[in-house]
């Protein structure tokens, strides 16, 4: 019934960067959902210190695509988002679920360019921080 419009790509080298939204439309401590070319979704956040983070949008505990609508904050200084579903808290830097460290979201790199925020389509390969 509905046709899915795939978003435009901004190619640089081998990485695929997806234009998410204008820089000024992402409000601090709020998230937005971004649709990737392969149909995956990421939750994109800006913290109060203007750092950008992106992690998988689908809550692994309930399979609902809602993490972008969670509350952004911190736990012991670690920037976090709390899933609005069952309130599991995820670290934004690593994607690790702080309430259940066996579970982790994939993370994506984010950059600002020409007044636009871009999210890298490919998830990061490994977590540096554990």
């Amino acid at each position, binding site marked *: 019934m*509905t046709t*899915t*419009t*795939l*978003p435009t790509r901004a190619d640089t080298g081998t990485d695929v960067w997806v*234009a*998410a*939204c204008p820089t000024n*439309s*992402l*409000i*601090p*401590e*709020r998230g*937005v*959902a*971004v*649709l990737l070319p392969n*149909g995956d*979704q990421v939750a*994109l956040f800006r*913290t*109060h210190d203007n750092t950008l983070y992106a992690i998988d949008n*689908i809550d*692994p*505990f*309930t*399979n*609902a*695509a*809602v993490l972008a*609508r*969670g*509350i*952004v*904050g*911190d*736990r*012991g*200084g670690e920037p976090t988002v*709390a899933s*609005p*579903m*069952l*309130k*599991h*808290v995820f670290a934004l830097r690593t*994607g*690790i*679920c702080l*309430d*259940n*460290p*066996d*579970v*982790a*979201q*994939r993370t994506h790199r984010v950059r600002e360019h020409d007044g636009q925020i871009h999210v890298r389509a490919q998830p990061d390969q*490994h*977590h540096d921080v554990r």
Partner: protein
Amino acid sequence: MRQLVVIGNGMVGHRLVEAVLDRDPDGTWQITVLGEEPRPAYDRVSLSTYFDGATETDLRMPDLSATGNVELRLGQRATGIDTESRTVTTSTGDTLNYDALVLATGSSPFVPPVPGHDLDLCHVYRTIDDLDAISEAARGARTGVVIGGGLLGLEAANALRLLGLQAHVVEMAPWLMPRQVDEGGGALLGHLVEETGVRVHTGAALSAIEPGDEHAARVRLGEDHIDTDMVVFSVGIRPRDEIAHTAGLRMGPRGGVAVDATCRTSDPAIYAVGECASAAGTVYGLVAPGNAMAEVVADQLAGGEATFTGADTSTKLKLLGVDVASFGDCHCETPGALEVVLNDPPGRRYAKLVVSDDASTLLGGILVGDASAYAGLRPLVGHQLPGDPLELIAPAREGGGGLGVDALPDEAQVCSCHAVTKGTIHSAIADGNDDVGSLKSCTKAGTGCGSCVPMLKKLLTSAGVEQSNALCEHFTHSRAELVEIVLSTGITTFSELIAKHGTGGRGCDICKPAVASILASVDGGHILEGEQAALQDTNDHFLANLQRNGTYSVVPRIPGGEITPDKLIVIGEVARDFGLYTKITGGQRIDLFGARVEQLPAIWGRLVEAGFESGHAYGKALRTVKSCVGTTWCRYGVQDSVAMAIELELRYRGLRSPHKIKAAVSGCARECAEARSKDFGIIATENGWNLYVGGNGGFNPRHAQLLASDLDSATLVRYIDRFLVFYTRTADRLQRTAAWIEDMEGGLDHLRSVIVDDSLGIAAELERAMDRHVSNYSDEWRGVLEDPDKLARFVSFANAPETPDPTITFDTERDQPVPAGPVPLGMPETPPATSGSGPTETPHPNPREA
């Protein structure tokens, strides 16, 4: 498996079964309980609350049959015991074998054989059936006489008073409660009881009850008489020992089944506990000694060696609103004992301590009018006095006064209902039980009469356990303290509040919505304005209720549940056009499910155009004011409940609060709107409205309690204004009104003094705050529709605003759309790529919020 038969299902019989189960985790005993009454065991100590709003369910003791090892036979009496074959026969003709038998048959009220004692208008006060009979007889009655001015007699007088009768108490002794208090205490007690409207006749001997003319009967007291419609006997109890007597068991000198220190009767396979037992010649008519006997028997059955060596008969009660306590050797019977007395009738208090001849050891005491020193004094009985005895009973000064918990020795009993010592509580604290709740479940202390709960708090504090009421890691303050800070500083943003009063960091999903709620209730702007938007929980953030597949449900306000056909049609059309699932809610409105984020504004647009507004189903806020049809249609209604419900719902709509608030208005005492299950409920009377507060459904249902009666409409609204603002300012995060009132020092009485009597002098300010709320109210949905910035957030994807989330799909069930796929169980289906090497644990759903 061994067979245990328990005859009697009162409080002590119930306690026995509980104690046996505690000691028998492997289920080696199969327990059969015979209960004569048709209902499971209930709290007989709190019987008078039955006339103050409590129901049979409220009084019921915990159900123990869930373990499978307990068979409860209700409405069945034991008719005989054969000690040779070890069998019990029952009133249903069954024969039960036993390896051990426990008699917990209790007692029956003693009715003195005066002429007329068997008239129809004579009652006793012991079982729920008795109370129902009293309640039935009170209809149309004006006067009731209680024979017996002891503890139970005063309870019965209170019951009559609550039923609206002029109550009289007749006591043969020269003062009330002669067993518990002395002449000085009794004099003050009599005075305070008369102040409640109960007429007291002491030194009065009942000689006859004669059928009367105008009233049903005339109670003869020697020369005097009282004309009355009802008589309740409460002069004492007689052990129910007939069955034991017939079985040939040895009896005590003054009735009751004789038992030894292990609570065994003259037949080693048979035990007796509670009011039917005679221990060392004494029959105890209190629940605490009965419980102690039950523990001894349970220990014996488990192979232990516990013994019963007499019991603490200390009592602390609130009778007719008067505090009375007595403990230890209150009548100064120890040779050489001295009395230290403080008699202060103008100050409405009497206190006496009994001390040893050298004034070094506390032996007992009596407190009337103010029993607050009881919790500290009773455990000291038999121990060295920590200071000047007069100091101990002197009026409390700044800082609490009286006695510190540190003065208590380890073996001092803190909870006399369950015989828990200070030492036991200390070890429980050392084992990591760091709040009153876990101390209660671990030691049982505080789960009986509850008078030692303040003591438990003090013991925690003295053990260095900080009883934190910090909101979360970002604030050391409680919600109520943050309200104070916001009100006094005028701070209007979360950033400023956390910078000036937080512990560092940027907040979390606990403190952000809590502060958002405070700011909304103080400031009143749109909850999605500026920085506030980032504080909101997802439901408030999208002004709709998140469902399990990431869609939302939409609930338009239908005040009082009244709706026109045209508006009903609009709701149906909107649901049909947007493919929404519809369901009628318990709050008399309609819930539309399955809306995607990007559809919400269009749905609201259609609803707002038809005259609807947000129903705040998503908020910790006033939800609905439910109503019955009232005088408009109902043959029985006495007030217009619909109009009142609509007025209240429109007045309080949008009020942000610590938790959701539900309300209802019933047009008569039949209570069809279920108002007493609400945070505030109103029930119409012939003269106006009764206001109930503190009810809720849910996991732990509570009945609302009467705050004020027969109010006119304006006063009703004023009281609710005060109640709601007081609640939103002083309750903890996610604390419903019931728990808020329970936690309040002084409970419902204190709340009533603040709301009705304005004891804190804040009523005017509370009303002004509510007036500000009412005049600042605007519809939150319309606020989004009229603001392009807010509207811009309602998109599925930042980079594809109109593309529906591809993970949302629907099946059809009973002709309606429902989320596709199985209900997730809360565990990720595929372990994530980065999962560690250890075994995967089942995730625990976050307990902080359900």
